[in-house]
């Protein structure tokens, strides 16, 4: 036997051969491919730009980001086939769930990444902020969102949430020349860290009560045992609801949202409304509806009902009194969070589907709306007030039309996706017996419609102010606007394929093979 092979054999003994009785979980690389593409995409981008430095052309980072997101989206297709053939699975030792829910959420995150990359491609040169770190952080946070949406373990969920949030804190503060951006970043960071502590405490209490952090094991434990003293478990549920409620921006944990949405660079605000909300809602659905749903539904549903009603009402009424369009959209996102909470509240398959469909719809609406705000804000983002939208229809008829469609969709006008999204969640809530919450939701929809129509009226029926600087719509932003409008109308008129797809996207928990 030659020298190297002896060495290799020895290495194999020492390094690769596990200790007796030590079974390393098999890692199904194909199963976590979408997430891996996002992770590796960000790390490779970081490596390439730090090696090549200035020699990297400016189009490289956005194109790379969009390619990574599209590739991750495409990687979902074979996995969906696999899910359709063999049913839900749990991978990597019970840490990652592969089911329709996680795959659907992955696709929505990828869509949000494409939008934010398109917007950043024009926004960063305009604000003289060009640097590849934006795209690195976008991809990293997207990976965090996917991790949350597919987490089968509370620890994985927490780490995913932190990846998502820390990247979002940094991106919020990354407009170095706007003090508001840095103030927003700091505020978001401090309050976010506080809420993470709540979530972590909740996880600890839940672990104490059930003896596991694995969602499937928690579900099985609660199905098989009756906990006689459940104070620990209820405390855990309540604290986790606070932590996740903060991330989705539900009232009364919403106080950060208006300031952060207003201060953050506008494309990032759109991304937060899309991907960050999605990650948190996916976690909420997985933990509350799936893991605690069967046994503890009666306990958490009243709490979620209160959060939903408060979010709906506060979001709708506070939005009316705003004069800053970005803040209006921030409050409206709180109202939307209330609607999505209806889907959570239903605690049924229909509820989960409708919440997912709403999140997909809202990703399109938010990306498009914040794209308009980006364009109208002009260099330095000084023009965010309602005054600056006066007469937009005469200056830029196309832009005004796009914004009108997006706002009408947010208001829930038929033939747009917003209508169907609202219809589905309200139906799901009524089916689960929460008629009164559904009534509140519909009333607040009317109230917030007033706010949306106020913006539309300002654009169409007011005179444009004299001497406002010219309005330029750069190419990539134009593409993003076009995509969002096409998405909103297409999904609104022909929802069939996507809503069928969402119908199969129900989270399921599989106990890991021992």
């Amino acid at each position: 036997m030659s020298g190297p092979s002896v060495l290799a054999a020895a290495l194999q003994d020492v390094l690769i051969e596990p200790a007796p009785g030590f079974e390393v979980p098999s890692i199904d690389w194909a199963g976590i491919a979408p997430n891996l593409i996002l992770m590796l995409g960000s790390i490779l981008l970081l490596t390439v730009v730090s090696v090549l430095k200035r020699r990297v052309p400016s189009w490289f980072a956005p194109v790379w980001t969009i390619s990574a997101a599209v590739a991750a989206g495409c990687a979902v297709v074979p996995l969906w086939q696999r899910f359709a053939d063999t049913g839900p699975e749990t991978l990597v030792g019970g840490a990652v769930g592969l089911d329709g829910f996680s795959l659907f959420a992955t696709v929505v995150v990828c869509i949000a990444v494409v939008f934010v990359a398109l917007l950043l491609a024009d926004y960063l040169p305009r604000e003289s902020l060009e640097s590849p770190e934006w795209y690195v952080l976008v991809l990293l946070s997207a990976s965090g969102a996917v991790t949350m949406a597919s987490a089968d373990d509370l620890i994985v969920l927490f780490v995913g949430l932190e990846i998502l949030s820390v990247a979002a804190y940094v991106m919020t503060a990354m407009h170095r020349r706007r003090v508001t951006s840095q103030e927003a970043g700091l505020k978001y960071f401090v309050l976010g860290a506080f809420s993470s502590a709540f979530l972590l405490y909740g996880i600890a209490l839940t672990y104490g009560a059930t003896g596991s952090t694995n969602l499937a094991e928690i579900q099985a434990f609660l199905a098989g045992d009756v906990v006689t003293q459940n104070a620990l478990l209820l405390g855990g549920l309540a604290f986790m609801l606070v932590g996740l409620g903060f991330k989705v921006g539900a009232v009364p944990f919403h106080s950060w949202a208006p300031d952060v949405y207003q201060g953050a660079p506008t494309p990032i605000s759109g991304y937060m409304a899309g991907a960050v909300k999605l990650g948190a809602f996916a976690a909420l659905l997985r933990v509350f509806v799936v893991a605690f749903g069967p046994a503890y539904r009666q306990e958490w549903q009243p709490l979620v009902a209160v959060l939903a009603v408060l979010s709906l009402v506060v979001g709708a009424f506070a939005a009316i009194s705003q004069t800053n369009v970005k803040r209006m959209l921030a409050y409206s996102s709180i109202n939307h969070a209330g609607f999505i909470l209806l889907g959570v509240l239903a605690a049924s398959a229909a509820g989960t589907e409708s919440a997912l469909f709403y999140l997909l719809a809202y990703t399109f609406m938010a990306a498009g709306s914040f794209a308009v705000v980006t364009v109208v804000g002009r260099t330095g983002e000084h023009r965010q007030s309602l005054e600056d939208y006066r007469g937009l229809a005469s200056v830029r008829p196309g832009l005004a039309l796009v914004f009108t469609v997006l706002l009408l969709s947010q208001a829930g006008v038929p033939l747009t996706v917003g209508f169907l999204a609202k219809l589905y969640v309200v139906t799901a809530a009524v089916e689960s017996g929460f008629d009164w919450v559904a009534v509140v939701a519909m009333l607040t929809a009317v109230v917030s419609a007033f706010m949306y129509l106020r913006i539309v009226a300002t654009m169409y029926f007011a005179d444009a102010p004299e001497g406002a600087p010219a309005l330029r719509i750069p190419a990539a932003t134009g593409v993003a606007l076009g995509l969002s409008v096409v998405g909103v109308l297409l999904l609104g008129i022909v929802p069939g394929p996507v809503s069928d797809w969402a119908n199969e996207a129900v989270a399921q928990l599989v106990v890991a093979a021992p």
Partner: protein
Amino acid sequence: MRVEVFTFLVAGAICVGGALGVVLFRNPVHNALSLVATLFGVAVLFIAQEAYFLAAIQVIVYAGAIVILFLFVIMLLGVDQAEAIERDPFRLRRTITVLGGAVLLAGSVAILLAAGQRTTGREAATAPLDPAVPDVERLGRAIFTDYVFAFEITALLLTVAVVGAVVLTRRSTGTPIDLEEFPDGSAYDVWVSDHPGALVDEDTADADADADGEDGSGDDATDTGDADGQDDESADSEVTS
């Protein structure tokens, strides 16, 4: 009293006392040192649970490395600077905050008391561990089996943190462009004292902002700026360029 209970009570008191110190002391150095007490108390609790390796790591990594790093940062920033914590001017909000905190504390204590002796019905969670398997091995097994994915993606979290830290500590070029949104003018003074020497770029910054045609803060900027910025300007101009 059994020795475990006694150890627990003492270590718990150290933990809580340290935590209170972190919040209540006014001097940031004292805050950081109180944190050491909390972390040390947790290490003692680990020893009481026979998790010796974790206790050692707790002391070495947290007390030894992280708090020392905190102290470095505090010292580098200057101890006096961190004194500028103001009390919340809204009395109502302060009251609500205190009340909320008290309710939360009472709730947490109630949860733990109500839990009593039996909370889970799952004996294994409290049963003694097998003494034949050392705790290092046990930890290794947990990390590389059940929690391997969480363990690996923590690397991603660290990457985010590093990228974020590098990006946010990079010095910005030019004056802030949205100071008119802070009508009392305090934001500007804070910014100038945070960025000594940055006013070198004043001309280019104004040119940028004026292209938009509405930068109102440019003039005030030069007036108020010189007084604060001058002494440090020479020292820091190299950093900015």
